[in-house]
């Protein structure tokens, strides 16, 4: 492609004026700058540091929890269950739209106040709208203390032997 002076008109099929070329360069530069500004702005809005509670926390000694009890930890939004087979940690956050469920001891059922989902104490859905059972969370023993990590979900048959 040849660049020609405006005065040397008419142009051939493969020629364009310097003016048109510089205008195209200008538009492209503004486009690149605008795109960069957009990407940077979105990136700016992603926090680098979050001042949120740690996902890994200690619950207590396993021998303090009698068999058949369900411990409610509302701060961390976790249920800790001691079944005959062992310990199970389970999220208390409803799988429907993220509300905090509550344990109703008199009915032995986990109930979500937002849209009425109900779960059995093993986490399975009794009635909707919750689409999935409550996922189980990583549970381990650390220096004789039960430790839960809410950031790690494990399979539905995971049990920490007592």
């Amino acid at each position, binding site marked *: 492609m040849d660049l020609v002076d405006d005065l040397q008109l008419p142009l051939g099929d493969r020629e364009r004026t310097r003016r048109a070329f510089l205008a195209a360069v200008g538009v492209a530069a503004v486009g690149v700058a605008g795109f960069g500004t957009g990407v940077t702005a*979105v990136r700016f*809005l*992603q*926090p680098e540091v*979050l001042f*949120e509670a740690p996902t890994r926390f200690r619950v207590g000694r396993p021998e303090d929890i009698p068999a058949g009890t369900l411990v409610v930890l509302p701060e961390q939004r976790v249920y800790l269950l001691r079944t005959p087979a062992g310990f199970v940690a389970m999220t208390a956050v409803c799988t429907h*739209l*993220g*509300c*905090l469920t509550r344990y109703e001891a008199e009915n032995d059922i986990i109930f979500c106040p*937002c849209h009425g989902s109900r779960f059995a104490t093993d986490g399975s859905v009794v009635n909707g709208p919750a689409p999935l059972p409550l996922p189980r969370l990583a549970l381990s023993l650390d220096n004789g203390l039960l430790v839960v990590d809410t950031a790690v979900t494990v399979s539905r048959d995971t049990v920490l032997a007592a």
Partner: protein
Amino acid sequence: MSDAMHQTSTPKLATRLLQNRVYRSIVRHGPFDTNRNRSLAVFSNFFLHIHPVKVRLRAIAFTRTFYLGGLSAASYLILVVTGVFLMFYYHPSVPRAYEDMKDLQYAVYMGPFLRNLHRWAAHAMVALVFLHMVRVFFAGAYRPPREFNWVIGVVLFVLTVLLSYTGYLLPWDQLAFWGVTVGTNMADAMPVLGPPTKFLLLGGTAVSENALLRFYVLHCVVLPLFLVVLVSVHIWRIRKDGGIYLGSPGGEGSTPNAQGPTPTAAAAPEAPRP
């Protein structure tokens, strides 16, 4: 201009007030004694020039539009004024937000009035915008050349709902907290874009002080600015399309002062050739 003639027929005080150099530098048209001056009064005025110079009686009949667009704009004006007043007492932080809301409700002079007015105007605006869309739809007022103005209207409706939703979090009570938890989890359910959208909206992984501040900025600055710009374009396009829609282009009751050929006119079936 025929100033000399008016001076003889108008009282002396009015002459001094309306014919002096300062007033005439601000209002540059003459008294409302001719159609030309009455027209100039409209289109030389920044606030009135959104209107066509002449409006047909049919166009301002209450039953044509039920004034729903204008009432939506009026609700917005009320929301801006009451909202700015509320901002003088509200801190978007935890736990001040909830306490400030309670102070507005029980301690601030005229606080309950302003807060309730803000709330009711917000409800009214959502309802009015919706009814405005229903009216436009059933009148067929979205037809060419007004298709894009319908699109702007849809965006304005979304902005109205988003303003309503972002304002929902600001009292920082249980309803607000769980309402926003549910709403952002709905965004989270979107494929691919869901999780990053939720993270950006909340400024974290859960509804927290970051989320409160973000919703506050969106509610008080970002969304109102977008809304004002789009409403301006919306009203400007109505003006350019010849004012209120009075019928299909070229058809009975249509607006003869609509500018330019319309796509439907261009695409109209040709008359059968002999």
